């Protein structure tokens, strides 16, 4: 009897505002995403629980190869270094290492992770403003590239170099005006006011250290490729001046990261897919600047890229389930999902694309999407047009591969599992769902607080 019944859809009615701008945006998110690389969303959630992060290895490798091709077709010596902070799941890091990426780390924790993953010490770039003495000693012993952020660090390395039989391989991070706002001048040494030259002179005149490179990282989610061209020109100029003054060639120029992914920033008029430059545009700007700077072909430095977000964002999905629907006092539909800003940190600055994971008719409703946290700030999308979702329906959030799996918070709930789907479509769990035990294992309860009577 029940098999004869028709598919049920919640009744909806929507006023038509002909000729008016629709503040809920364009019709882009109605097409359901029922499968990821051949795996049904429903089956994945059934097997690994909801919510669930999914990483498509196929997309990860395809994106890397696209970026690699964009640079290698324009410049003879290119090296990518995987930005651990963007996503340091070991499976993700190793997929990038298999593609040939070195490691770029910004803390002792990440440095250890890279070593444990099997990255040779001399292929680890150690960035960041806080490297402890012990971490610097290890980096010197392992021949890693140490990118100096401030003079205190420079002097500390100098001291350590005197005690060591190894010559630290160092680079300086240079900040500069590239015509974009805000200028990231809190990291490294400034180009325009001479701080960078001062640091270079201090290194070059010290025979205990070797200046191997110059590094810049001009911002994050950069939408202007020409700013990279400007930065590459300024670093090239420094490298050429070092050659002139000290007769020494700098081995590499590291352009850092910051390339925008295809996500849509909040408040952006255009969708990210239209607003974000392609790898080719970034590559054209950077490579042209270095090639035209005046290096001889033997002095052409290695070009290192630490891009993270643009390489992994698109490969990540967050799968979740509808908890409830309600109507707000102003008549707007509110849908509560089983994941919130605790695990989708990037919803603070992106209007993530969210698709239903099952077929619907073409009717839609304007809605607000909330997470399950008992907090007012837990908003996944302030306004979105979606089909009439009902309790237990599934949704898929697109492009969540960058930063969510490193910046997520263990707040009032357990963090979900992460699954990687390999290039043949097989799913592999790469991080288990947390348990109460895994959270409490490092807690220590003093004996006198053990018992109580209520």
């Amino acid at each position, binding site marked *: 009897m*029940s098999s004869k*019944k*028709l*598919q*049920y*859809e*919640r*009744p*909806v*009615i*929507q*006023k*038509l505002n*002909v000729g008016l701008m629709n503040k809920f945006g364009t019709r882009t998110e109605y097409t359901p995403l029922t499968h990821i690389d051949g795996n049904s969303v429903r089956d994945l959630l059934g097997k690994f629980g909801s919510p669930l992060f999914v990483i498509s290895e196929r997309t990860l490798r395809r994106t890397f190869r696209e970026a690699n091709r964009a640079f290698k077709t324009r410049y003879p010596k290119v090296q990518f270094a995987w930005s651990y902070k963007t996503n340091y799941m070991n499976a993700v890091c190793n997929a990038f290492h298999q593609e040939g990426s070195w490691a770029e780390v910004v803390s002792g924790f990440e440095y250890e992770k890279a070593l444990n993953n099997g990255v040779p010490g001399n292929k680890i770039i150690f960035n960041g403003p806080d490297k402890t003495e012990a971490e610097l000693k290890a980096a010197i012993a392992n021949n890693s590239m140490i990118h100096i952020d401030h003079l205190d660090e420079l002097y500390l390395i100098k001291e350590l170099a005197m005690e060591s039989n190894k010559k630290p391989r160092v680079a300086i991070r240079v900040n500069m005006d590239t015509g974009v706002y805000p200028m990231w001048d809190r990291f490294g040494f400034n180009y325009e006011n001479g701080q960078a030259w001062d640091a270079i002179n201090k290194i070059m005149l010290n025979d205990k250290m070797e200046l191997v490179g110059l590094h810049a990282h001009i911002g994050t989610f950069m939408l202007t490729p020409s700013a990279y061209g400007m930065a590459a020109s300024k670093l090239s100029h420094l490298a050429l001046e070092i050659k002139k003054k000290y007769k020494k060639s700098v081995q590499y120029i590291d352009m850092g990261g910051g390339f925008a992914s295809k996500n849509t920033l909040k408040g952006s008029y255009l969708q990210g897919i239209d607003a974000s430059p392609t790898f080719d545009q970034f590559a054209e700007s950077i490579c042209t600047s270095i090639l035209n700077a005046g290096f001889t072909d033997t002095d052409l430095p290695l070009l290192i890229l630490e891009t993270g977000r643009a390489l992994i964002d698109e490969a990540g999905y967050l799968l979740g389930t509808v908890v409830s*629907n309600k*109507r707000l006092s102003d*008549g707007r539909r509110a849908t509560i999902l089983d994941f919130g800003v605790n695990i989708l940190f990037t919803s603070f600055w992106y209007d993530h694309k969210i698709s239903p994971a099952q077929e619907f*008719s073409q*009717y839609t409703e304007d809605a607000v999407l909330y997470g399950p946290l008992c907090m007012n700030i837990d908003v996944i999308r302030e306004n979105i047009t979606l089909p*009439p979702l*009902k*309790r237990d329906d599934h949704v898929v959030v697109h492009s969540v591969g960058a930063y969510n799996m490193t910046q997520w918070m263990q707040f009032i709930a357990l963090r979900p599992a992460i699954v990687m789907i390999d290039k043949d479509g097989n799913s592999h769990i790469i991080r288990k769902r947390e348990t109460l035990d895994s959270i409490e294992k490092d807690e220590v309860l003093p004996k006198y607080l053990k018992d109580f009577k209520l």
Partner: protein
Amino acid sequence: MKLKKNLALSDSGFVFDPSTGDSFSTNPIGLEIIRMLKEGKNANDIKSQIVKTYMTDDASFEKDFYDFVNMLTKHNLVEGEKEKN
């Protein structure tokens, strides 16, 4: 409750209110409910009809039905007193 008498409905889910000039779009189930309301059916009749035809249950539909009726009221498509049952 009673819907405004002169609402114009099309088979594709287009609803026109000639008294205000407002137009609306509704999905097939919404259209079916509006038609039943126009025929004067009460909430229980509508519920049993929908539950018989579609893959849903009394509790789920009742929740959706009252939300839908609230939206009809908000859109000014209802006239007269709410039905008491």
